[in-house]
């Protein structure tokens, strides 16, 4: 039998490389997390990655809310967010002056988590996306702007045709 040529082997190599190994089951990740660090109960959700961003968003929101609560936001002095009772909490009316002007969603990752069988017997591909949604609000009178970002994690089911 003829020996395959270098080109034929390279072509086969490329074809093999185009195949993607099947994703491990999600439970395996949890098991590894537990074996590496027993306290790490469920890192699979990736919530830890979002914590700094969520904290930053919360701080921005708090500072901005307090700033708007000080007479039309015209104060020239710096405003510091504190938990002191002297600070008047923002009222619904004050916050509602802000009008949404822009919203942008940045998708950071999209993971294929394999096929799942739905209750009706059909199959779907599970896609988990992680994104950050940026919001821009504006006060029409003072033109003051509030920007904040929220982390999101969505799970999408994409229907798969069975042949």
């Amino acid at each position, binding site marked *: 039998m003829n020996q395959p040529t270098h080109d034929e082997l390279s072509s086969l190599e490329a*074809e093999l490389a185009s*195949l993607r190994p*099947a*994703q491990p089951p999600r439970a395996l990740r949890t098991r590894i997390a537990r074996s590496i660090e027993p306290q790490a109960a469920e890192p699979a959700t990736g919530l830890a990655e979002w914590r700094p961003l969520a904290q930053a968003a919360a701080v921005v929101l708090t500072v901005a809310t307090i700033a708007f609560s000080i007479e039309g936001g015209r104060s020239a002095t710096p405003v510091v967010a504190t938990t002191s009772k002297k600070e008047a909490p923002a009222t619904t009316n004050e916050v509602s002056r802000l009008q949404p002007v822009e919203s942008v969603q940045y998708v950071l990752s999209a993971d294929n988590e394999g096929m799942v069988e739905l209750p009706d017997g059909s199959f779907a591909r599970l896609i988990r996306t992680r994104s950050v949604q940026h919001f821009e609000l504006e006060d029409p009178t003072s033109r003051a702007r509030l920007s904040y970002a929220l982390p999101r994690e969505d799970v999408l089911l994409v229907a798969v045709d069975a*042949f």
Partner: protein
Amino acid sequence: MPDAAAQRWSTWYRDHGPALLLFARQITSCSADAEDLVQEAFTRTWRHLGEGALEDPKSLLFLNLRRAAVDHGRSVRSRRERETRWASDPSQTGGSLFEPVFPFVADERRRELEGHLASLPPEAREVLVLKIWGDLTFEEIGRTLEIPTQTAASRYRAALERLHRRLTAVESRPAHAHLSQPLPAAILRHHP
């Protein structure tokens, strides 16, 4: 666990988890055993490098996986016996080794490749998986399998040639070739 450390091993898992599981499934026929080996590989590597490790431990993960297999008493002999069973009954492996490919025609080819890959000897499959999907160098493959670098390279080429021959043999066979084969004697006895 500090977030940075969790992030680090999560990155290892994302980048190498699928290839490690594929490699483990060349060593053991049982998908549960394969997952145990992957878990053990991560645990050993994490203990070895610790949280402060900055380098990508790809090669070390594969090495630890194979050592875990050896430590758990998976001898070459029993492995071969299992692999023979595995090759004859792919349903025992816990599903496809690779992600489905679309469209359907392309997925047929994927299944064909997977079937021929499964029919190769374990040594050939291991070296193919480590090179193609593990993305290891021949030197790293040699360390992982405890064979000389040159042996790893020649074994890889031989495995590719063998796979190519099997694929071309199937492609060149006439679609109804099996009909020209003589009928088994048992059938002839009952239906002369």
